[in-house]
């Protein structure tokens, strides 16, 4: 099953490499990984989309917690959260299709961010289904290039990612018999 893990890390050189090295070294899968500074410049947030059975996910979160530079690990899957991804799509726009490209972009509330005589570049933000849908619609019109950011996610309501306890011993101690 696919999981979205939000990881708060110290904003230091080498931290990304520790995380990506952990995934590759232990054979965990990364579907996407995004990282940027938070409101506190001393920390960064990573959003990692990964997959695996329960045992693998348990190992992923425990192993992440074990890294000294990691402050909080929060597996958002199973709780209520909002996630978004942005894509930039460069679509071929010949005379016969220019209007159609714009119409589709419009329906999806896409924004044209670059125009050339032969193409449009369109920015779209949304969840995965929306992005997949628009990509499917653009495919027959010839997509010249595509760049995706990977997902970012945040819990809904008052909860913030920092409030999740780092130490997993509690969880271990509660799953009993």
């Amino acid at each position, binding site marked *: 099953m696919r999981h979205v893990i939000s990881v708060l890390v110290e904003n230091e050189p080498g931290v990304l*490499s520790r995380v990506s090295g952990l995934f590759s070294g232990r054979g965990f899968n990364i579907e996407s990984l995004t990282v940027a500074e938070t409101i506190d410049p001393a920390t960064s947030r990573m959003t990692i989309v990964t997959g695996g059975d329960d045992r693998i996910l348990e190992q992923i979160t425990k192993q992440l917690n074990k890294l000294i530079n990691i402050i909080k690990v929060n597996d958002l899957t199973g709780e209520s959260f909002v996630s978004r991804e942005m894509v930039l799509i460069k679509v071929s726009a010949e005379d016969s299709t220019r209007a159609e490209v714009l119409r589709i972009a419009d329906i999806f509330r896409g924004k044209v961010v670059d125009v050339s005589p032969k193409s449009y570049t369109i920015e779209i933000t949304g969840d995965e289904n929306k992005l997949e849908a628009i990509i499917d619609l653009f495919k027959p019109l010839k997509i010249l290039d595509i760049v995706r950011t990977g997902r970012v996610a945040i819990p809904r309501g008052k909860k913030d990612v920092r409030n999740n306890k780092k130490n997993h011993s509690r969880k271990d101690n509660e799953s009993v*018999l």
Partner: protein
Amino acid sequence: MKLTGAQILLECLRLEGVENIFGYPGGAVLDIFDQLFDSQFRVILVRHEQAAVHAADGYARTSGKTGVCLVTSGPGATNTVTGIATAYLDSVPLVIFTGQVPTRLIGNDAFQEADIVGITRPCTKHNYLIKDIKNLARCIKEAFFIAGTGRPGPVLIDLPKDVMGDSVKFEYPEKTNLVNYQPNYQGHRGQIQRMAKLIMKSKKPVFFAGGGIVSSGASSELTKLAEMISAPVTTTLMGIGSFPGTHELNLGMMGMHGTFRANMAVTGCDLLVALGVRFSDRDTGKIDEFAPHAKIIHVDIDPTSISKSVRVDIPIVGDVKDVLKELLKIFKKEEETDWEELHNDWLNQISEWKDTHSLAYDQNDQIKPQYVVEKIYELTKGDAIITTEVGQNQMWASQYYLFKKPRTFLTSGGLGTMGYGLPAAIGAQIAFPKKTVIDIAGDGSIQMNIQELATAVQYNLPVKIAILNNRYLGMVRQWQELFYGKRYSSTKMEVAPDFIKLAEAYGILGLRATKPEEVTSVIKEGLSSSQPVIMEFLVEREEGVYPMVPAGEPINQMLLV
């Protein structure tokens, strides 16, 4: 007062109580070695940086203190990697200082530059590159804290040359401020209650003790507990010594080369109490058929060890010593249980298994390696510190030497590093100058760090090296015999030095036994010497280590002799 980076480093080491530094100099660490020249520290100059780490590791495993290494940049640093990985897999507290090229040259492919922080990231508990002298003292403080607490492990600090020359006002922090690293020592009380209840219900329990018992110092608690409730104990390779080897409740080691009774007991038990173990593949064999009838309780300080390979019924994250103490308290109040009665049938069953004598061998007209180890055991009365290399020598040492106490058996269990034994023996002898320290070696693995004989001589360390010479890489040969149709590909050590002459070349005593009747006298003479000694035993060439569970098979499917 302002101190230079090199001075700060030494001052921090002094405040951490460090006495011995295992090292090797070079360009990038000249400032530090210059400071060491007239310092209070004892610097042990090894002959290869890998050995510096193994020696610090041997020092740490025997003494329980954190071992310290200092090497130069580039090749000096990369040579430490095997030693660091060895310590990482066996959870040994080390702090390794490596030199680095000046900060302005980092990334420039400068002379003797290596990205050692990048290289060692997956095999250290944590590591640091100090780019600013202001962070030096804090990082050293953190390094010692991280290395020695929780599940111990190696921490590396990379020191660019210019940082060692810079100066700053020195202040050593009293405490670390690592919000993200707070190991949990106290086991969950409710879970320990449940653990106690499960143990009280069990008719066929087995305690399974690992290296965590040794590193947390929980041997006496384990012994008390096992005796109190009449429960048998088996150990991992790393757990050897955590429970007295001669104790009637000791089943011996379990796993691939475990005893018949240990493997049968684990397979037949209704409750497995795993203490400070990580269920390595060498212990469990085929996971699906591991302890099939048992509930499993797992106590470990490292949450990642729990439910990694084996599903657990009661997980407890905490220091195993704390948990066992708590358990003892509960059982002391519990007087109704007649433990002996409860476990009587089970112990009878185990003693039937014991009669299988899975470690029996016939000492015929050629020296059997098992016989050599047994004689070493007898003649040292089980009081020596034993280190091993890796392979058959390691398994025979673990099977035939009965260890009374923890921290007396040093072996590379996780990584399986050939060449570990001699430098580890050197480190152990530094920690315990008066104790008998013996490296039980093979003719193959001793040659991987044989250069350290010079170190032993230079520092008057009377380590004893027992080479079980079968002129093969014996363990690999054994696998080729059993699983590759006796095609001995690259396992014949056709050329080896004359170990007696080699001993002479280093100015030490060399002794050789070629016949069984010479074994005792060679060991006696070797042990009575106050110098390092090589004792070479020409053993039966194709002797195998048994019992053996083929890799991936269930552990009750043993090949016996």
